[in-house]
């Protein structure tokens, strides 16, 4: 379960090899900045594919009327960018490859300071498919028209936030985290029908506060290998937790156990309800109730 995705294992292995093998400093780098912008041409939806192995990445909403804007700063001696928008399929693809498919050696990555900033139109529904390797990521999907988001990270420090409610209900939010520190903020603004979080090892914080415009029941799944999981629930949210754990502790204060399911006291009367299915192996599961 822990390393079930090769796409995560590869960048994870890359950074480990990097940390182990780096022996000499790369003193001089040639960075190139690639900026792109595209106007909206009646697109009904757009798909964003991002593959970014090393550096810092941000994602947010564009306020200037563009379909998307992006700025990529990369080492042009090592990498070759692929930034392509397919008009027919309405798909933007951004990724960095080694020159001519060459594998970049670990010692070449020392002190590499790459960056990718993406801003998306809030008015065009978007499918987001992102894979990160060793990155620090700050992703704010708040205010976007989100159809679906699939985010995979390797060894990273990732903050996923919904600073404001998304414009349209999203079908699914899926996050797969390798060995990382991951924090999701204001998931109550995501308006997603299904939320899935999978983590191999690390520290995970899932903050379910937000406006919870999506009434009724929302399903969320959490699979955790090893690490600490902190769950933050707003007091007005009805929460049911189904727990499948091996050697994990669960902070059950504020819950009533019925038929192997932990229910918050307001579950039956709450306007918005969350059914959380947790599958944890090792670690602590902490719960924090946030007053309105």
């Amino acid at each position, binding site marked *: 379960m822990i390393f079930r995705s090769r796409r995560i294992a590869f960048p994870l292995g890359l950074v480990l090899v990097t*940390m182990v093998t780096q022996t000499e400093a790369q003193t001089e780098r040639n960075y190139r900045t690639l900026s792109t912008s*595209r106007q909206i041409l009646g697109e009904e939806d757009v798909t964003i594919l991002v593959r970014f192995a090393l550096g810092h990445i941000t994602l947010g909403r564009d306020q200037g009327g*563009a379909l998307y804007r992006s700025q990529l700063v990369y080492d042009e001696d090592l990498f070759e960018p692929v930034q392509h928008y397919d008009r027919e399929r309405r798909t933007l693809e951004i990724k960095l490859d080694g020159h001519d498919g060459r594998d970049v050696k670990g010692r070449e990555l020392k002190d590499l300071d790459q960056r990718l900033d993406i801003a998306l139109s809030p008015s065009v529904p978007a499918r987001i498919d992102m894979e990160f390797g060793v990155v620090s990521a700050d992703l704010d999907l708040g205010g976007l028209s989100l159809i679906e988001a699939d985010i995979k990270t390797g060894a990273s420090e990732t903050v996923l936030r919904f600073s404001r409610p998304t414009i349209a209900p999203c079908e699914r939010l899926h996050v797969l985290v390798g060995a990382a520190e991951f924090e999701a903020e204001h998931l109550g603004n995501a308006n997603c029908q299904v939320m899935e979080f999978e983590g191999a090892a690390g520290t995970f914080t899932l903050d379910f506060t937000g406006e919870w415009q999506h009434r009724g029941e929302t399903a969320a799944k959490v699979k955790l290998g090893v690490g600490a999981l902190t769950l933050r629930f707003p007091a007005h949210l009805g929460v049911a937790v189904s727990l499948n754990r091996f050697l994990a502790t669960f902070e059950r204060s504020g819950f009533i156990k019925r038929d192997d399911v932990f229910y918050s006291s307001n579950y039956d009367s709450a306007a918005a309800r969350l059914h959380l299915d947790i599958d944890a192996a090792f670690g602590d599961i902490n719960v924090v109730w946030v007053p309105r």
Partner: protein
Amino acid sequence: MRVARWTPVLALAAAAGLIAGPVVAQQKAVVAHSVSVSADGSTLELELTDGQHITFEVADGTLRINGQPAGSFKVGSEFESSWSNLLSHSGSLSSAELMEALESWQVEDFEELGHELATVITASLSNLDVVIASAVGAAQAAVAEVEAADVAVAIEEARRAQELVIDLNRLTGDRSVLQRIEELRDSRGNDLGSLGIQVENGRVHMGDLAIRRGQVYKGNLAVVSGDVSVYGTVDGNLAALNGDIVLHRGARVEGDVVSLNGQVTRAGGHVAGTVRSVSSLNVTPRRARAAPAARPMPTRLQVKQVSGFDAIGQGIATLLGFFVALACIGFGMNFFMPRQLEVVSETVSDSFGKSFMAGLFAQPLLLPLWAMLVAGLAITIVGIPAAVLVALALPLAVVGAAVTGYLAAAKSVGNSYLTRRMAQGHVVVATPYRSMVYGLVGLLAVWAPAVALGWIPLIGQLLLTLAFAATWVMATAGVGAAILSRAGLRATFTGSRKQPALTDEHYWPMDASNFTPARRGRPKK
């Protein structure tokens, strides 16, 4: 000091108009732009409403429009730095804002430019006619190349006019195989059987084909005279001729899916392109030929048939290979760590039951132990390198322990055999190396029946299973002995703690009258 004002929008319109005409060009708008800036140069790429791209590249003292030189400038000049500065600050601009910025862009002070270059640049920037003329030449050359290419295509198409060509890169759309079939149908009806068929730009498979889950075919794929079931991924177009295509759940085709004279059934899966099928054709693949670069996939006919004798020969070679490899490892261990190997070997010999049970109980604990160690170390970023080392080292250590245990067990068997021979009065020089060889011969001999009769159905499988089981038992006992003896450092379970009355010499009583002591080396004369 001069002030030059360049309006790239007009240059852009002019450059674009070279292809589509000036009137149309004026109606075009920029819908997307891409700016690439580095110390070596900078590039501005504009995409127009009709999908055309105009690229302005400023590098190495040359301004290029769509790759064609349109003017020169002095490297490091005011023009270059001003252009780079403009593009550097355009990252946050929309395309419209960028065009406004370009319109208001001013380059001051051309005095520093060399006279000759300055003339070119000044002319290029202040007099758009120069830019236009340069771009016209480039565009005309490009158009000429395109026309020449079109002529070549037309000639090739004329040559193939009598053939139905399956170009896997072009299944649908203009000049596609489907379009060609429709044209042929109009003129000849459904009977296309007399036409030859070529398959280009892809792999060809004859007969039925199943693409398993997790299997990925790079590039295009054609299946001729067979059905294809897709559970995995085709990273290109997929075509079937005289066969059906079934897309199962989880299947992925990154291009188009076309069945000629068959059906396409979608039980799930994802197709990035279009799905089409044409039925009621009478097509015979009289001359199926792949393009030279295409690699034909192995068919069932190409699978090498191995006879029973070949299998025996291969088995003997494999067995000998294992023997040599294990003997080399065993000799090395005898040389470098004789005491530890001896202790483990004696533990196997003296406490076989306990060793086997220890090894047996250790095996199911290995995976959880590995997972706990790796996961525990990987909690922190700092511990990740150690986790990787453990993740790699522990399986290697387990394999090493199994091999060591097996060799220790072999040595134990060899020891027992030689001791028995000595007890029976034979003259035997029982060196550790000889014990190892005899023991390996004994242990590997259990594979001999499997090698000899392994090609016989059922019996062969049974013998193979028995040989594997015997090997596993000995390796398990060896690993257990290594655990009990702490890798040969603790002799608690060996005969060293036995009373002398229970040592090997008393297991097999010797006939002292028949005993001749063995000598090492040459006898002294």
